[in-house]
């Protein structure tokens, strides 16, 4: 280590970060990733959680109690939507139990769930439209929601892919630099 480096290290030792503060400080940093939910935010997560549970229960009971003459496609769709409701319930419960949201991981999960949910909704209304024109408004609304979800998903995928590609390029460049240094 050079004299100047020693000087730097010694200077830093003159102003250590107090241990008690470090704990609070690390908690503050952790909270940047895992943001605690406020009371109002808990309510906002509670609504889709309760909605998911209600929808899952209703749709599952419908799928199980429909008459035997019900087409298999309808029954399958009811099951599918019940699973979707259960999925929202699971995501909501996970967030509520933690009492916080992870800015990256949870956002990714929500975007994917929204995409799947809107795609199934759209498929359901499209199928209904083949026999009942009253389902057309539902198809329009679900198509709009699906397009929005696709937009979010594409935007997120492109951003993550770009960052990943850039990271890989940098890692290669750094590996080259290390080889050059050794030579």
């Amino acid at each position, binding site marked *: 280590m050079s004299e100047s480096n020693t*000087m730097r290290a010694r200077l*830093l030792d003159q*102003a*250590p970060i107090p241990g008690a503060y470090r704990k609070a400080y690390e908690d503050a940093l952790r909270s940047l*990733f895992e943001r605690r939910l406020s009371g109002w935010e808990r309510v906002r997560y509670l609504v889709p959680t309760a909605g998911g549970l209600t929808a899952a229960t209703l749709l599952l009971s419908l799928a199980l109690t429909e008459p035997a003459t019900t087409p298999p496609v309808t029954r399958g769709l009811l099951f599918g939507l019940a699973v979707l409701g259960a999925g929202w319930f699971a995501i909501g419960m996970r967030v509520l139990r933690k009492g916080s949201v992870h800015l990256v991981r949870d956002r990714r999960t929500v975007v994917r769930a929204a995409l799947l949910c809107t795609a199934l909704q759209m498929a359901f209304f499209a199928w209904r439209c083949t026999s009942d024109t009253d389902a057309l408004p539902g198809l329009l609304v679900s198509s709009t929601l699906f397009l929005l979800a696709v937009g979010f998903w594409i935007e997120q995928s492109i951003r993550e892919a770009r960052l990943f590609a850039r990271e890989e390029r940098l*890692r290669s460049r750094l590996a080259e630099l290390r080889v050059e240094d050794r030579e």
Partner: protein
Amino acid sequence: MADPTPSRPTSPEAQELLWLRCRRGDRTAWEELVATWERPLFYYVRQMTRSEERALQALQETWVQVFTSLGSLTDPARLAPWLYTIARRTAFRSLGRQRDEPVESAQADPLVPDLAESEHDAEAVHLGLSKIAAPLREVLTLFFLEDLSIAEIAQVLGIPAGTVKSRLHTARASLRRVLVSHVQDE
């Protein structure tokens, strides 16, 4: 004993890689970023605010700023100057002060050996820094921390590189005088 500070990502590529990993939400990259820069940034804001409490508050605010505006960094290869710029702004805010104090010019004493070449005591330098004018203390602190080039110090301070050099010259002379009088008093 203070915690050891991890080695700094000195090359532009290494700084950019760390920035990218942080942007992708890599928790370990954040821990690395904080562990690498918290002590030098704390030392810097401590010298600027001259109060441990204010410096700790400024440091925490700095990290929050860094976290929220990471995507706005246009040149990630210049991560270090960007961090110091944010720390500087935060420290100024905590002081409620926007502008630098005027700097008086000083002549170097040729009889006193150059600071960079002498085996000076870090504790004396640390105390000496607290006794010189704020703008001189700031530039000399950045110089001693060795994270930034002259051009990058100029970028952080928002002044031309030539002014940084002349201010450094003045700061060294001031510190030298403080150290000499300190030795004489003893």
